[in-house]
């Protein structure tokens, strides 16, 4: 988001994508997480899974080359990589529920110290948009979250306890914000990598809960 200090959207996605390990099966949520597939991660071999049963999709199709019957979970017309396969929805969620997804990357409104997160319903809303988020959150081996560190009015999205309805409890392993890379510790968050141009004091002031800091503290190295 323009005007926000620290990393931009793509750099936040890069920070998460650089945690992917060779051979992982990865599910990317709508929004910033989708941008993880743009990150250059060298020879690291990733299989991208989409809720609609597409296993092994690749880049967004070039203009004029789209197959209108081939989309990822965000509805983008993507391409298939060698080795791709398509299964139906019940099998696609058997893959998810069965623990065959190494990591799911999602956006969120809030993440708590305990690794709870909220991303399907706003305060006071009737209903919401769950999609596949609850299945992925409950069952993927790891949940990584990407979000802006603060809301538009400046309150922290890293909180002691979510006050929005949660998507799942105790599942978040890593959080990337515009200020860096964090991990929930149960009673706070641990800052593992810091964005360039931001100080620990600024992050502490913007964080609504206890913050511990890795020592040494690496500075995020923006791609390119």
């Amino acid at each position, binding site marked *: 988001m323009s005007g926000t200090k620290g990393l931009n959207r793509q750099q936040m996605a890069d920070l998460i994508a650089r945690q992917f390990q060779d051979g992982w099966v990865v599910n990317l949520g709508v929004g910033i997480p989708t941008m993880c597939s743009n990150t250059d991660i060298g020879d690291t071999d990733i299989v991208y899974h989409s*809720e609609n049963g597409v296993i092994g999709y690749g880049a967004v199709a070039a203009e004029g080359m789209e197959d209108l019957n081939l989309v990822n979970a965000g509805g983008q017309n993507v391409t298939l990589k060698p080795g791709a396969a398509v299964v139906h929805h019940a099998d696609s*969620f058997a893959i998810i529920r069965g623990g065959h997804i190494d990591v799911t990357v999602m956006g969120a409104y809030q993440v708590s110290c305990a690794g709870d997160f909220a991303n399907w319903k706003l305060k006071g809303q009737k209903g919401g948009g769950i999609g596949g988020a609850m299945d992925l959150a409950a*069952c993927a081996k790891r949940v990584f979250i990407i979000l802006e560190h603060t809301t538009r009015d400046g309150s922290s999205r890293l909180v002691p306890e979510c006050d929005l309805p949660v998507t799942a409890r105790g599942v978040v392993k890593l959080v990337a914000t515009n200020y860096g890379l964090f991990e929930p510790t149960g009673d706070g968050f641990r800052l593992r990598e810091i964005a360039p141009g931001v100080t620990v004091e600024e992050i502490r002031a913007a964080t609504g809960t206890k913050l511990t800091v890795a020592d040494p503290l690496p500075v995020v190295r923006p791609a390119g």
Partner: protein
Amino acid sequence: MAPKSKVVGSFREAVADIPDGSTIAFGGFAMPGTPFNLIKALLEQGAKRLTLVGNTTGGAQQPRMPDMGMLVENGQVAKVICAFTAATRPTDTLPFTKYYESGECDAELVPQGTLAERMRAAGAGIPAFYTPTAVGTELAAGRETRVFDGREYLLEYALPLDYAFIRAVRADTFGNLQFHRAQRNFNPVMATAAKCTIVEVDEPIVPAGEIDADAVHCSGLFVHRLVRVPLPPEGLWPTKRQERRR
């Protein structure tokens, strides 16, 4: 002797006998596999007090194609069972949301994998099952859970259907189906859960035997009516999504 053909001459004819109060599932995920032509025919047919089942009520993307939300707007729907009553991004709006908020139409919000599995269970003779999905959330409040091997699971019930409306790329006259790429999604799962599955088919419907038995994605025993989609503009086909403005 060749099996009796399930081909029906028009979409109007394929949906003509659908009674008020039916439970109807709509296949598709984004554009692929969505039965636009059958939805349009149901809008014209006018059955009321329907319960609709599908991933989303639709209408967040432009150009807007026939979707479940249009049946709601047309006053035909009592309830929807889906994974989205509001859009994924708070900045987008679904036309359905206001009908739900005002109480004009009821909704049951179900996680997407649970929705698929409830229909799979219905088609497979399983009355209920336990899933870890939604445990600890407000969807699980007051509902039955059970601990297996130290982990808590939520009880979910099968979701049987009166009708499933789906789209496939290819069919033979017996109703054996093939899907192209992401067309598959919920479609073969819904077909197993429905008393009557109606399919709109992209390509000319071939005689039974022309699709190799090993290459069938959904057996014709789950399929009851087939209609070929005419070329545009008479028939409705997936279109390119307009990129959202930022």
